[in-house]
């Protein structure tokens, strides 16, 4: 048996030579890793490094192709998450697994209860007591009887946490828990992790955000391309060192720039004004009602000059998606006006806006931008099927399309085995690159990009940022909407924050700090500090706000 170095703490979980493969692609290669009891162990690496795969192996979602897992010294084989749960392991997934139309209470109770108990009518009363106790203990402000689909992202994450705490899981796995939380919510989550450690839980924390990792982790394991590079004590390393480890393979190909990209810096930008300072895109007092799709916009005004890159940040569910959709033409505007290049476009169809050169990258490419069952080339053609070189008199010139498609894919470094493969067979990162290629080809006059860097590894993100800057130099304007402040800080000329359907503030990049932006994201005004009617901004740990208060405050957000 592998003897752990250091202070002789017995590893509660040990991975021994774990490998997992998807077809020809090795997601995990021969990983041997010890997790000590009672520690917060961070697993870091860029997108595609294999972190999630490793956790899925531990949790029973996947079976390893070779290697084994030891729990408290004994070999275990998990055939499904149920086995892992029985062994005391719980996982909070990156894409939250909740039941939309069930209430929070039902969400937690669904599945096997504690010690495989029943959740029938008698047990529900007891369960409710227990859940309220846990909520009070850890400061969750979760209303138990509201259907989950009406709750914000942070609350739904609390549901998953509640579920694993209720089942007395001693080992908790959290997969990228902070990527969609506002800075304050991130702080609360990190405090929660520390409390949980105090209570004796062991925590496996996956993240690609090193600042957070260093705030709470005891030890850090670095994965790169499926392999474990090493495990390091947090006290004995720095963020720079770890970042270098994550990306060091690309040293030869301009690693310095990539390091900078990883740390959130970019090239210094100066706005390039090609024409009159009059705005290219102007939103005047736009009002869109709240709906299933999320908080609407209230009296929203915004303007973007030609050649400008405007970044918009927000917490999920504050109207940022609606903003993108009304500019793109997917949602009608109730009141207000949208001017593009001096013309009113509020009543224009999507195809008319495309003709004007206004393009849109949706937040969820698989559902909103791709036809999963259709081949790659058709997906690239989508939107251009009536353009001249690709068709004449309605007849599609397939060889021409294939040629053009091949070029686009090569430029975008999309990896796929054939143009005729269904696009659903591409990896998430490649799909993102494909849609980006489609949106940015042309080039457009102005591109509205929602979370453009999602799913891309460090190198691809750096390339994307370079491409955006290069296009911007040639006069293309951008509206970039993202939950990742680093992404916005790297390329924007100005950054604005949307909160509850209104623009909470806009700052030049030189003046925008994470603190300021973070405060805006939660609606905290600069001068007066916290406002009294902001639920969640300053939640009292001992007395969580009442459910009605909360339901009113964050009703339709998060959809």
């Amino acid at each position: 048996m592998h003897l752990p170095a250091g202070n002789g703490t017995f590893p509660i979980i040990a991975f021994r030579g774990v490998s997992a493969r998807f077809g020809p692609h090795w997601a995990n290669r021969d990983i041997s890793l010890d997790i000590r009891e009672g520690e917060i162990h961070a697993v870091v690496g860029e997108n595609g490094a294999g972190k999630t795969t490793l956790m899925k192996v531990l949790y029973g979602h996947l079976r390893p192709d070779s290697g084994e897992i030891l729990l408290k010294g004994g070999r275990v084989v998990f055939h499904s998450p149920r086995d892992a749960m029985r062994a005391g392991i719980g996982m909070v997934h990156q894409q939250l697994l909740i039941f939309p139309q069930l209430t929070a209470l039902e969400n937690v109770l669904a599945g096997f209860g504690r010690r495989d108990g029943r959740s029938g009518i008698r047990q529900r009363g007891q369960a409710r007591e227990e859940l309220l106790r846990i909520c009070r203990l850890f400061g969750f402000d979760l209303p138990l009887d509201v259907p989950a689909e009406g709750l914000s992202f942070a609350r739904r994450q609390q549901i998953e946490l509640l579920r694993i705490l209720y089942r007395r899981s001693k080992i908790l796995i959290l997969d990228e828990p902070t990527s969609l939380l506002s800075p304050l919510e991130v702080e609360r989550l990190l405090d929660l992790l520390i409390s949980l450690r105090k209570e004796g839980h062991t925590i496996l924390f996956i993240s690609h955000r090193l600042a957070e990792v260093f705030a709470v982790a005891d030890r850090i394991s670095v994965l790169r391309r499926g392999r474990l590079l090493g495990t390091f004590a947090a006290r004995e390393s720095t963020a720079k060192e770890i970042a270098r480890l994550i990306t060091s393979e690309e040293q030869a190909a301009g690693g310095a720039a990539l390091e900078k990209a990883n740390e959130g810096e970019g090239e210094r930008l100066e706005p390039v004004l090609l024409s009159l300072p009059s705005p290219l895109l102007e939103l005047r007092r736009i009002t869109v009602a709240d709906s299933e799709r999320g908080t609407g916009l209230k009296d929203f005004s915004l303007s973007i000059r030609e050649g400008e890159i405007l970044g918009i940040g927000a917490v999920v569910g504050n109207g940022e998606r609606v903003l993108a959709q009304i500019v793109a033409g997917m949602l009608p505007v109730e009141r207000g006006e949208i001017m593009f290049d001096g013309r009113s476009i509020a009543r224009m169809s999507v195809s008319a806006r495309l003709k004007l050169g206004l393009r849109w990258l949706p937040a969820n490419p698989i559902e909103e931008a791709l036809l999963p069952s259709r081949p790659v080339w058709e997906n690239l053609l989508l939107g251009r099927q009536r353009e001249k070189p690709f068709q004449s008199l309605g007849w599609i010139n397939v060889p021409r399309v294939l040629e053009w498609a091949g070029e686009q894919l090569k430029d975008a470094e999309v990896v796929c085995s054939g143009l005729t493969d269904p696009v659903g067979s591409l990896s998430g990162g490649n799909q993102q690159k494909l849609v980006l290629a489609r949106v940015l080809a042309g080039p457009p006059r102005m591109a509205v990009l929602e979370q453009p860097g999602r799913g891309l590894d460090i190198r691809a993100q750096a390339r994307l940022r370079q491409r955006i800057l290069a296009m911007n130099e040639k006069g293309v304007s951008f509206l970039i909407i993202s939950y990742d402040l680093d992404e916005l800080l790297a390329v924007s000329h100005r950054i604005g924050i949307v909160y509850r359907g209104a623009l909470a503030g806009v700052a030049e990049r030189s003046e925008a700090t994470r603190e300021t932006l973070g405060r805006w994201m939660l609606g905290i005004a600069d001068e007066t500090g916290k406002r009294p009617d902001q639920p969640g901004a300053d939640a009292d740990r001992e007395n969580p706000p009442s459910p009605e208060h909360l339901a009113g405050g964050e009703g339709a957000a998060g959809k």
Partner: protein
Amino acid sequence: MTPWLHLVVLAFSKAAPLLLASFGGLLSEVGGVINFSLEGMMLIGAFGAMWASFASGSPWVGLLGGALGGAIVGMIHATVSLKLKANQIVSSFAMNLMAAGITGTLLNQVFGIHGTSPAVPRLPGLAEALSSILPRAGAWSTVAGLPVLAPIALLLALCVTGFLRWTSSGLNLRACGENSLAASAAGIPVFRTRFLAVTAGGLLAGMGGAYLSIGVLSQFVEQMTQGRGYLAIAALILGRWRPSGVFAAALFFGVTEALSEWLAVRWSNLPQQAFLALPYVVCFIVLACQVGRTKPPSSLGRI
């Protein structure tokens, strides 16, 4: 007074098979499996009930046979849809086709005739079943004529409601219908749960079919379900997949059918087809006039 009572009893009698079928469909759809094959389940249930009753001489065995027939259809639908990942609507449709074919074939093979089976023992009416308890006189005789299966249908509907709302298995089933990935991550055996639910649903729908053949009549007629299975699905949609809503919708359709029959006699100068078509027309209009969009279980139809 008496004509109204007649109508009420008739409505209840018409609603009972719909109640059974729609609650059977509810079990399936709440778990996430689209079930358009209620029509086929009812038809096979009707035939199975007739056959079992014929073979055994006891209508109760017939009821069992009908339930079993429906359950078998459910099992096939579940397997094909869930394990073999078939398009659930096409699979449902195929089951309906299969039911029509098998009942026609077996009617010919086993009984040597086309169209209508010979008379078989039928389920007792309420009066015979509870002859010691119910008084015979007056208005009660109308009620007493109800097939005993009718109140049983009511009871079963209530059982399904209680199951879904209060038991842990019911909660697990609803979870499967909301998000199957999350359900399996929560430790619920998704396939098994759905399979059992669809089978149980088929069992209920089969009983609904048995009601038609040996509850009201005492024989099987080819294609005797006449679209009731689809009305049951419409009840699901109208009832927004909630037990209380489905209950109300099924009763409403029962009333419509009863009314059509009743009016057909009163207003015999109008064409007969108008009354035959009335339940479907009313159903269509009610569906069209709904306020707001319908929202099925979040994971309905997806694996």
